[in-house]
């Protein structure tokens, strides 16, 4: 089981991800610099959060043209798995692997807080082991997290169970207050049609030990590793 974590200038939580996969989950993890052409033959590519290239032009707009992203696109096209967190989600949208776009938060403020998300679908194997309706406590840290897509795209996402996480209250209710950034349909994470690409704004790699406040993030990362190990056998 191999995970590659891509780092861009301005990435953050890449080392948290390396820690979560390597130390907590005991997976073979390789940090990969964005200028590299060698993805290290992973089962999963993890694109971390942060502010790649200073979020210049649009979040993720420059990062998608980094040399390593050709390899990431090829890995995905060949049937590989890709997970984008926060800025990684924005990059997957800019690449066109995921539909829609992440825009400035409704209230314009940068939000750094714990939120609750509800698992909405078992479409993506990357949420293996998470049953629909499960509520997780996972932190967000973003200024550009408001998910936007046109009506047809939204309808198609809903119809095909591609909405993987929605912002809810701790008890799993959809309320306007529980949606921190004004995302359409309270969307916190989506997958592509195949389920092999998953993007989400909350940071599961930040909540992998109770000493960090919660280990709910392990339910996401641990589940996907369990699936990939199972798929590899």
């Amino acid at each position: 089981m191999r995970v590659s974590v891509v780092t861009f200038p301005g990435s953050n939580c890449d080392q948290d991800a390396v820690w979560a996969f390597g130390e907590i989950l005991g997976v073979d993890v390789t940090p990969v610099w964005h200028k590299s052409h060698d993805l290290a033959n992973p089962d999963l590519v993890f694109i971390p959060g942060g502010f790649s290239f200073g979020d210049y032009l649009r979040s993720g707009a420059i990062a998608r043209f980094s040399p390593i992203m050709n390899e990431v696109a090829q890995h995905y096209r060949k049937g590989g798995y890709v997970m984008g967190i926060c800025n990684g989600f924005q990059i997957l949208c800019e690449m066109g692997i995921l539909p829609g776009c992440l825009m400035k938060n409704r209230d314009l403020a940068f939000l750094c807080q714990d939120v609750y998300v509800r698992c909405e679908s078992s479409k993506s194997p990357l949420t293996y082991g998470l049953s629909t309706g499960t509520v997780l406590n996972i932190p967000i840290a973003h200024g550009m997290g408001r998910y936007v897509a046109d009506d047809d795209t939204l309808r198609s996402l809903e119809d095909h169970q591609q909405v993987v996480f929605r912002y809810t209250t701790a008890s799993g209710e959809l309320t306007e207050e529980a949606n921190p950034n004004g995302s359409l349909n309270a969307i916190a994470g989506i997958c592509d049609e195949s389920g092999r690409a998953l993007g989400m704004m909350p940071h599961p790699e930040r909540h992998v030990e109770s000493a960090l406040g919660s280990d709910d993030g392990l339910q996401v990362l641990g589940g996907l590793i369990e699936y990939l190990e199972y798929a590899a056998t």
Partner: protein
Amino acid sequence: MDSKTYRVSVQLKPSVLDPQGKTVAHALHALGFEEVTDVRIGKIISLKIHGDLPDDEVRGRIDAMCQKLLANPVIETFELVED
């Protein structure tokens, strides 16, 4: 080498909520500019291009730049600003 400046306007699509524009509209109202009914905030990108390229070829290449990088067609429209 002479170069010519081209300006591209990148604007949010009308269907996309622009909270920054809404906030600025509120501020203008607070300053007494009640005639303002809406504000949308976009970008102007200035490009200096080698002057020896024919204008229509430059326009075609700027269109490609916008399609590929300068604008995101999911949320934005773009056009060359004619001076």
